């Protein structure tokens, strides 16, 4: 159960961070 | 408001005049000029038509700004081609490092669990295109969503099941 949680959480965390970073760069062109 | 109209008109002329530029560079230049106008107005502390007019006067004619993009032999037809052929004119917001970082954080999170996102975060910190604050926020996101619950689980269960590599 713990391993499954990790398998879900890590991609979630990484993708959330990636979305934030993408938006940050996209905003540069304002 | 008249001030905003003046600015819109100016930017419109700049966009029109910059048709020979590669789209990347055109967008970048427009962004830079926009930011210049806003910074100048913020410093002046006013946004009335006279102040805006002065700022735009000091900026110069859009046509002149664009024509100074062409650093090769002067002459209307030839420098357009030379410019378009020069792929390295603009440095877009995204570089190879940034693309790799995002790929590692997304695709890498699935294909290379733990290692992929970790490497992605390292690349984020190596980049010069994200500010330190943005890097910190991204790191905090990862820590909060992933590491804290894991630590919490470890504390509650007391098992060592967290090491997934």
């Amino acid at each position: 159960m713990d391993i499954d949680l990790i398998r879900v959480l890590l991609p979630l965390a990484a993708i959330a961070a990636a979305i934030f970073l993408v938006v940050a760069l996209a905003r540069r062109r304002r | 408001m008249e001030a905003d109209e003046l600015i819109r008109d100016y930017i419109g002329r700049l966009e029109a005049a910059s048709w020979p530029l590669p789209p990347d560079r055109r967008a970048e230049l427009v962004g830079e000029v926009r930011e210049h106008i806003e910074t100048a107005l913020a410093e002046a502390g006013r946004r009335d038509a006279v102040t805006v007019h002065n700022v735009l006067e000091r900026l110069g004619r859009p046509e002149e700004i664009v024509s100074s993009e062409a650093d090769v032999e002067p002459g209307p037809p030839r420098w357009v081609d030379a410019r378009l052929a020069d792929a390295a004119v603009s440095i877009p917001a995204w570089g190879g490092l940034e693309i790799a970082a995002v790929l590692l954080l997304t695709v890498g999170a699935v294909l290379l669990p733990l290692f992929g996102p970790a490497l992605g975060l390292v690349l984020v910190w190596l980049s010069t295109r994200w500010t330190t604050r943005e890097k910190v926020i991204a790191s905090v996101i990862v820590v909060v969503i992933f590491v804290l619950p894991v630590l919490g689980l470890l504390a509650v269960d007391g098992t060592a099941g967290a090491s997934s590599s």
Partner: protein
Amino acid sequence: MSGMVHGETRNPLTELRRGVLEHCVLAVVRDRESYAFDIVRVLASAGELVTSEGTIYPLLSRLRRDRLVTTTWRESDAGPPRRYYLITDEGRRALDAFAGDWARFRDAVDALVGRGTRRGETRGG
């Protein structure tokens, strides 16, 4: 400078300014990071260097492309992140070379032109 007409007459000072301005910008960012508007402000306050402030931006783009400066994005209190410019080693070399060239050039021009208005004495095209 009269050989530079290609469908548009250019004031001799325009060409001169453009070549010199690049190196003035390098000088501004030699010892400390600056963002674009700051650079414009310093140049404007130094004197009659910039007729059209907007032309600094293409110039900065060229300096980045030629790797004479590097840039870093930093947060600013006044809104969106800003791009900060700093000279590179190659930029330093270019600046040093220019400093020498400029001094010689300036002295030569002063010696000729600074003779005052002696109308009969032209040096050909």
